[in-house]
């Protein structure tokens, strides 16, 4: 038995330790877990850590860091050791958080209504009118149910005496509940026995309460089912992962501002099947960006006219527009009085001692006790990092004091908090527990009974260093799961299988937004495009390697084809192609900035996948993620030809697994149909262009060229099984063009596309002009006997070859026209960006 983990776990006199009592004993509610942790063998623990890292990477759990110049996603950092909180302690915390949510809601009701708090002097007007977060156009609006605050987060910290204090309120669009859920799904599998034996409260009830709360307020008519959407600013937001994750978990469509449109008194989601009224918008977008007509006009993110729908009571926006106001830390000092006035109760949990410099006595105090305080902006819209008084010296100190004196109302000072510390598993030692400062972000949602439900748990945030005073996910902090223990039974409810009434049955995704459909269409096209270019490059590279650098006629021919298809740059642009083509081929694989390159296709594929992330299964996402990692890793070193071929092999493997997921795992709704249409259309175009070029290029008459053509169309096995002889033109053309049972044949794609178009005409009521079916029939009517006695190795620009090439090119043109028609008919409004106009 190794020595106990306690032997080197650091104690602190200045901080409260979550696990240890003052005299160094393990606290009762930690004992069982600690004994377990102490008993896990190092190699076993190592495996569990690897499991954590793998799940995070595979699930694509990321946090976008604004500060990163590459705009890269950073994997979410999760420590496997949870923060454990005993039942009696949680009861107090939970009641206090619910009270605070109710209080803040009552404040919003007052500040956007009667404003008694201002009239009676309980709040300084500077903290209301002086904030950009006070949205004047929302003054006087009363939302359904009197609920302004639908979801709320509060940052808590524990002081050295063990009491919990409020550090910050989040009332705008609080983030982190989705990460807490994801942390739970991972950590409960790292310690499954402990999770079961300790009676840890589950989280699903909390999310159900949120769903019920939102549904109960939805302004529906008759027996309409509430249509609730989750509004995201888009994939570049720091917590986009969470938006997609929660949307999928809650079963709400994930939409961007441009997916919604206001017509008359209602707001609608633009879907493939027309406009569908939206009753509730759960927003993760800041409120001032939500309606460019009346709020900030300089952004295209919002929904013009939304405020008038809110005024008409025809949509619930959660949180209500204007609720970001209460995020200001300067309000904290006033909350005890406001609580007595509005709720008639004592404020249950104190806020960290806060002085708003806008009051003369407070300003005097701050100047006198500058070294003991941390200075923060009074208004959340101000950009300023917290400043620690004792760290400022000389000119910097004088400058800060001058700035505070000039605009005292813009600053608050808070007492410095010594955060509590919790045991964290060290990543740099084989087996060690280290102590890190932690804070808890707790969550509350408005439930259907008019009260607030508090999540039994939350997001525990871990500071980066042992002495850190600030916890920031932006600055590289980590997180923990939070285990709230219960004496009672644990609810076994799960949202993964909600009970559904007959009226709620959904058979197809009829509410798909046009944007999602467009992105699925492009996902289909790009996934086929990258498969095609990978195949082409592999065929070419393999032949270059086989020829030992010598430029054989077959090599020359396939390089010429790659140029014609735009996978390689044309020789005038890059002379190196002529010299054997190795360098150009490698660039066409790895350089994402070269037009037509494989890396470029992968990037486009990831882009469209990112935009429909909530529609993809986890497995789907795993495949895509591993693909991108592989490409990025390969791009950094200078791969040899053999390595490049091996990479292409793996790319094709991933591609086929992706395709398998699409065929096997996705429901056959409109979105799936557009994905497949995109895929078939791209393949049709690739094959038609390839075969037409093949027929037209004199260089393909060399030996071995029909072989690579079969390989390009992934049909070499089929050919060999049918004809046990080397390839000849007639049977190859029959297999690749006319055989409608070959899934890699031209006719197969054209027939399938025709069938999908018919079905769309039937279901979506839009008739295609028939250009594609005309071109298909024109190709089908080609007389194959013309090729029967053709000496292919001898012919140059002969009539039959040219005629067939003509018909293939006509079909390709029809496919291009079809793509544009689909865009016009189903996606047009997506490309339009709204603009502000102003006249005096």
């Amino acid at each position, binding site marked *: 038995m190794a020595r106990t983990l306690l032997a080197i776990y650091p104690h602190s006199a200045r901080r409260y330790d979550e696990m240890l009592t003052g005299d160094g004993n393990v606290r009762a509610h930690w004992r069982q877990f600690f004994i377990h942790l102490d008993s896990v063998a190092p190699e076993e623990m190592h495996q569990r850590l690897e499991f954590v890292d793998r799940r995070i990477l595979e699930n694509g759990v990321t946090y976008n860091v604004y500060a990163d110049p590459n705009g890269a996603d950073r994997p979410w950092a999760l420590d496997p050791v949870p923060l454990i909180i005993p039942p009696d302690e949680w009861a107090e915390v939970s009641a206090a958080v619910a009270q605070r949510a109710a209080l803040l809601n009552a404040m919003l009701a007052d500040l956007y209504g009667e404003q008694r708090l201002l*009239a009676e*002097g309980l709040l300084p007007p500077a903290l209301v009118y002086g904030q*950009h977060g006070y949205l*004047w156009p929302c*003054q006087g609006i009363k939302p359904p149910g009197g609920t302004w605050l639908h979801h709320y987060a509060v940052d808590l910290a524990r002081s050295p005496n063990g009491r919990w204090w409020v550090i910050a309120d989040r009332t705008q669009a609080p983030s982190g509940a989705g990460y807490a859920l994801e942390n739970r799904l991972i950590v409960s599998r790292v310690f499954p026995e402990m999770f079961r034996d300790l009676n840890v409260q589950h989280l699903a009830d909390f999310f159900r309460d949120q769903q019920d709360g939102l549904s109960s307020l939805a302004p529906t008519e008759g027996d309409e089912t509430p249509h609730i959407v989750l509004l995201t600013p888009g994939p570049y937001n720091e917590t986009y992962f969470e938006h997609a994750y929660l949307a999928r978990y809650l079963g709400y469509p994930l939409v961007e501002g441009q997916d919604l449109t*206001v017509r008359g008194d209602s707001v609608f989601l633009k879907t493939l099947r027309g406009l569908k009224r939206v009753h509730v918008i759960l927003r993760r977008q800041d409120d001032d960006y939500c309606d460019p007509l009346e709020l900030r006009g300089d952004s295209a993110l919002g929904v*013009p006219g939304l405020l008038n729908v809110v005024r008409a009571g025809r949509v619930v926006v959660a949180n209500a527009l204007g609720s970001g106001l209460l995020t200001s830390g300067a309000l904290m000092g006033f909350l005890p009085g406001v609580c007595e006035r509005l709720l008639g109760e004592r404020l249950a949990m104190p806020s960290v001692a806060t002085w708003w410099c806008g009051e003369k006595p407070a300003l005097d105090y701050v100047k006198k006790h500058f070294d003991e305080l941390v200075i923060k902006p009074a208004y959340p819209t101000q950009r300023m990092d917290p400043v620690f008084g004792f760290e400022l010296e000389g000119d910097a100190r004088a400058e800060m004091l001058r700035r505070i004196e000039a*605009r005292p109302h813009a600053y608050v000072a808070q007492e410095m908090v010594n955060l509590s510390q919790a045991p964290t598993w060290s990543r740099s030692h084989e087996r060690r527990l280290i102590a890190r400062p932690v804070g808890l972000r707790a969550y509350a949602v408005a439930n259907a009974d008019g009260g607030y439900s508090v999540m039994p748990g939350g997001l525990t945030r871990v500071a980066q260093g042992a002495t850190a005073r600030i916890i920031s996910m932006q600055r590289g902090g980590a997180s923990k799961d939070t285990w709230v223990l219960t004496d009672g039974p644990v609810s076994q409810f799960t949202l993964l299988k909600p009970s559904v009434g007959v009226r709620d049955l959904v058979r197809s995704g009829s509410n798909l937004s046009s944007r999602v459909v467009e992105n699925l269409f492009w996902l289909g096209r790009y996934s086929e495009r990258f498969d095609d270019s990978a195949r082409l490059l592999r065929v070419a590279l393999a032949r270059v390697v086989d020829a030992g650098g010598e430029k054989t006629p077959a090599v020359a021919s396939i390089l010429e084809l790659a140029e014609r298809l735009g996978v390689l740059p044309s020789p005038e642009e890059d002379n190196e192609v002529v010299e054997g083509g190795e360098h150009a081929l490698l660039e066409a694989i790895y350089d994402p900035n070269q037009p037509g390159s494989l890396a470029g296709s992968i990037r486009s594929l990831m882009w469209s996948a990112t935009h429909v992330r909530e529609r993809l299964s986890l497995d789907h996402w795993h495949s895509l993620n591993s693909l991108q990692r592989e490409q990025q890793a390969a791009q950094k070193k200078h791969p040899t030809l053999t390595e490049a071929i091996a990479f292409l092999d793996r790319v094709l493997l991933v591609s086929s697994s992706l395709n398998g997921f699409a065929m096997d795992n996705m429901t056959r709704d409109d979105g799936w149909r557009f994905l497949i249409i995109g895929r078939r259309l791209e393949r049709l175009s690739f094959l038609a262009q390839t075969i037409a070029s093949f027929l037209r290029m004199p260089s393909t008459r060399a030996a071995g060229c029909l072989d690579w053509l079969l390989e390009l169309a992934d049909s070499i096995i089929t050919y060999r099984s049918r004809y046990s002889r080397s390839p000849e033109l007639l049977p190859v053309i029959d297999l690749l063009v006319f055989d409608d049972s070959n899934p890699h044949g031209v006719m197969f794609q054209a027939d399938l596309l025709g069938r999908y178009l018919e079905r769309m005409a039937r279901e979506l009521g839009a008739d295609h002009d028939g250009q594609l079916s005309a071109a298909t029939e024109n190709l089908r009517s080609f007389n194959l006997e013309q090729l029967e006695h053709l000496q292919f190795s001898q012919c140059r620009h002969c009539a039959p070859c040219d005629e067939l090439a003509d018909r293939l090119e006509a079909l390709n043109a029809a496919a291009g026209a079809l793509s544009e028609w689909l865009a016009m008919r189903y996606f047009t*409004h997506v490309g339009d960006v709204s603009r502000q106009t102003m*006249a005096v």
Partner: protein
Amino acid sequence: MQPVRYHVLHETRYDYGGAISLSHQQLHLSPRFLPWQLVHEQRIDIEPSPTWRRDGVDAFGNPVSWIAFHAPHDSLRIRSAMNISVLPHPADDALLAASLPWEIVRDRLAYDATAPEPGDLEAVRYLFESPHVRVKHELADFAADCFPPETPVLVGARNLMAKIFDEFEFDPEATTVSTPVLEVLVNKRGVCQDFAHLMIASLRALGLAARYVSGYLLTRPPPGRPRLIGADASHAWVSVYAPGSGEWVDFDPTNNLLPDTEHITLAIGRDFSDISPLRGIILGGGGAEPEVAVTVVPLDEEEIPAGLLDEPEAGEAEA
């Protein structure tokens, strides 16, 4: 004293140079109720007809209308016409001199944890930063010499108005609707909107409450020349809070005068952004530069120019 009657025509025209598929517009074009203003008649004609319309009152007490167009259109014309009387309400030297010292007003408006006077509570709406009015110490410095200790607040405001008028040049080319106040302060050029924002920002920097007023100003054609339709523009000036001395008193820093019967008030807000006459969001189209024509005619003094009272017709705005 006799009221002065006016006919005002405010015409806005957009030629989008392409089809607009969806458009939402917010109108602050109807005059606000004021004790010294009587609206006899007012109508707004919109071409094409909006698909949807809602009328209301904004948080500052101004009439507001929202309209939406769902059908494709390539131009928009909004013609607001009104008959209105303005009663004399001059602010004389005695009134200015009798106002409270500015420090007293400043301290009344500052928070001291007691219930404020109702008038003061209304005034603090106009005490802080707003989108076009950043409150910076440079502005307090700029206004400082207009407000020696114990200067009556309205006398200080008149000093500040005169200072802006003397030091700044009227120059329509120098600024746009979004030029920041600090830039105007440095370049010393701008139009009525800039001077109003500058004066408001300076007053707020001292801890005083000031409002932005939009409206129209009677201009006089050169002697012997007829009044031209559309020769005027919409105007902006400032209103300063002076408890006990008329509550809110107007100042026009562009013309260095105290508005009386030649200023017609449309709306009042914290700054231009609250009460832009016409603000919209459009989808599609090419250009979006409006043509705006304003005509103010005193009905009792002169003949109404031909064509002014006609029904709108296509192409008339080019006259």
